[in-house]
């Protein structure tokens, strides 16, 4: 009976939403390489943590794969030249988030073969934990799922803790995006190699790959590439947003809840994204840096929608031109539609954490109703949607009164990871998650002053 109950609990977390996924336009499109742009814009801070320090000068020639900015401390990763060319400037350039950020601009040599010259091959199996962590840091890897947290920090087991399970996140729960899906289908060997390295580094005894059940073909591809002695299992989970949030995925796969304010490692689990581990499997033995990634380009009326492999630093404008997107598009989003950022400028580059580029024509795609805000009618849809089991309605009222401190002290504001489910379902069009972002920022500022 208890076992039955456990079975029922497995594969799902409570709450969440079912948006329209719109994945059919790109899920069948094999990964293609995009042409190299004439100019790359490479920010030095593409990860969470300290920005890397530039080690090249204006006018200097750089080779594809060469380090152009060094990691600044442990909570930082280096940046490699995504293409062979010459550094034309180092300065502030537009970013997706809004403020301009320090970036290295490279004019790409047209005649170059773009062969990766740099590399420092090793056999990862022969190294110990600390050396491996250094090696991972040297690849410049940061989570390719979107948050861009440095991978070596995620893989390092803090002192006094042990990891028993590695969870590999192949959910890709954001609508429109299919790049992880394609990576799982086309590069299962690289992915499994990355999982084996991650198991070796973390000391975890087993790995579970969690994939939403709308990507069963990806699960089959990975299973087919498994070796008999791999301690790796592949499990399907319900297709529901935000299944790919690590706390939700752990609940679905293992039935465990990460304690409030804690990390998965607190309960002995390390989580990594499939795209990240597939890159790790490729780069770690060669000792190369992360210089390119797969990006899903799609939206409304995009004729050449698909999954494109492109150098880090490729400007959005170049991608749109290459794919013949010339119509009047009003909104351009980096990432998915639920958590991605709409761009203030088309001169923003693709970075390590960019999984999608979405273009939309009319503003009406937000919904047919426009954006009139009505008072909260206490319909409780946000309460029933919040995967963290917060009370968005109540926090919304408090935010309206600017009682930001109370939101944090009494209503767990800091447990909100901004998935946007509350704003998605709100029939009054109240910008709930937007309120919460502001509240968090104000609280951070207040604490900084105190």
């Amino acid at each position, binding site marked *: 009976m208890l076992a039955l109950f456990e079975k029922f609990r497995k594969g799902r977390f409570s709450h969440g939403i079912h948006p329209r996924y719109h994945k059919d336009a790109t899920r069948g499109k094999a990964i293609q390489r995009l042409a190299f742009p004439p100019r790359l814009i490479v920010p030095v801070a593409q990860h969470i943590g300290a920005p890397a320090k530039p080690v090249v000068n204006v006018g200097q020639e750089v080779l594809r794969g060469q380090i152009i900015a060094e990691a600044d401390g442990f909570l930082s990763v280096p940046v490699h030249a995504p293409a062979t060319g010459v550094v034309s400037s180092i300065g502030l350039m537009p970013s997706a988030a809004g403020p301009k950020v320090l970036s290295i601009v490279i004019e790409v040599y047209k005649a170059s073969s773009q062969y990766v010259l740099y590399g420092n091959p090793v056999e990862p199996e022969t190294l110990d934990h600390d050396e491996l962590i250094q090696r991972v840091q040297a690849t410049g890897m940061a989570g390719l799922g979107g948050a861009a947290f440095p991978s070596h920090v995620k893989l390092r087991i803090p002192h006094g803790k042990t990891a028993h399970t590695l969870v590999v996140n192949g959910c890709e729960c954001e609508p429109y995006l299919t790049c992880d899906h394609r990576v799982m289908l086309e590069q299962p060997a690289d992915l499994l190699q990355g999982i084996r390295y991650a198991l070796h580094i973390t000391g975890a005894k087993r790995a579970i790959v969690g994939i939403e059940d709308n990507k069963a073909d990806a699960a089959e591809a990975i299973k087919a590439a498994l070796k008999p002695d791999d301690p790796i299992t592949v499990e399907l989970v319900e297709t529901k947003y935000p299944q790919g949030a690590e706390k939700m995925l752990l609940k679905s796969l293992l039935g465990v*809840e990460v304690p*409030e304010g804690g990390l998965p490692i607190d309960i002995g689990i390390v989580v990594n994204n499939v795209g990240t581990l597939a890159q790790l499997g490729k780069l770690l033995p060669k000792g190369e840096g992360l210089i390119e990634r797969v990006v899903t380009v799609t939206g409304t009326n995009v004729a050449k929608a698909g999954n494109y492999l492109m150098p880090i630093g490729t400007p959005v404008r170049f991608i749109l031109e290459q794919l013949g997107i010339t119509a009047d598009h009003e909104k351009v989003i980096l990432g998915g539609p639920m*958590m991605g950022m*709409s761009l203030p400028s088309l001169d923003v580059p693709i970075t390590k954490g960019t999984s999608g580029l979405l273009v939309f024509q009319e503003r009406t*795609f937000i919904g047919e109703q426009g954006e009139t805000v009505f008072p909260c009618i*206490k319909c*409780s849809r946000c309460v029933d949607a919040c995967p*963290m089991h917060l009370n968005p309605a109540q926090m919304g009222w408090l935010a309206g009164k600017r009682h930001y401190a109370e939101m944090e002290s009494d209503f767990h504001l800091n*447990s909100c990871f901004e998935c946007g489910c509350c704003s998605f379902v709100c029939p009054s*069009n109240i910008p709930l998650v937007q309120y919460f972002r502001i509240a968090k920022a104000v609280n951070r500022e207040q604490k900084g002053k105190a």
Partner: protein
Amino acid sequence: MSKKHIVLHTAPHVKKPQDVPTIMRHVVYALLPIVAFAVYQFGISVLVLVIVTTLACLGTERFFNWMGNKPSSLSDWSSTISGILLALTLPPGFPLWMAAVAGIAGIAIGKAVFGGIGYNVFNPALVGRAFVQAAFPVAITTWTPAFFTGRFSEFVPSSLTLPFMMPPETAEWVKQVAVDGFTGATPLSLHKFQHISTAPFDLYTGMVAGSAGETSALLILVCGMYLVIRKMMNWQIPAWIFVGVAVTSGVLYLINPEKFADPVFMLFSGGLMLGAMFMASDMVGSPLTPKGVMIYGLLIGFLTVLIRQFGSLSEGIMYAILLGNAATPLIDTWTQPRLFGARRKSA
């Protein structure tokens, strides 16, 4: 990319296409069959009654918009719902001028003083009804027999009472027009004051006297199901009310079947079905969490039976819902959702 401008917007960039006016509009759709049945049952008096209360509610809403120098909020349909619901809870021959008073009072003191849609504590339709229950206690308990002859050509005499006048005595008229077997008394008052029970089938289908729109329990259930299926109504609220009513009246019935009505009669008589499906489930006045909804529903069910069996009124759902509305803020503070990953209190 020749566009003159780019639209900036913070995430999420997609939205579920169901806003407040959409939900409210569908509630109106769900109420229309009930209105149609009420008109079929009681004739043009009810048709005009619905029109009068709805216009009174809309007019009051618009007046307060104008007073507060705010844009019109009529297009959110919520006052239309209040107007229709109010008419459905009134006796079919209720004087029209009193109905207008009920509509004005419901919106003015039930909704506008709190700040309009979303801010009201109580269900505006029920506030309107409670107002006239206190103001005109006789008129609101004067019932008209169902299916009386000539209902599509003439008004119930009391309907057309001049403003600020008391309605005429209708007992004589009732004797003239009543079809065999239909008296003006409602099943609940028959049971309470004369100990006469009504055939269950008549109760389910609405072949009885009562307020304009409360008589056919089955029709109300079907219309409510429409909203449940469209995910525009929380089915748990009526479900818990039914449980509360069934359990409370079941216990009483087991103690003394002579004195107290059985649970089935309790569930299908009076305004319970209409109140549970369309008024208690009003989102604004009900709690947020499933646990809170359970307490709220059970409380309303329990109070309804208590008032019906022990109070001086034959019907109790109205005050039960108003009390449930009043308790909602308290219930909400008690039943905050349990945070995902919350640490157990180390006490």
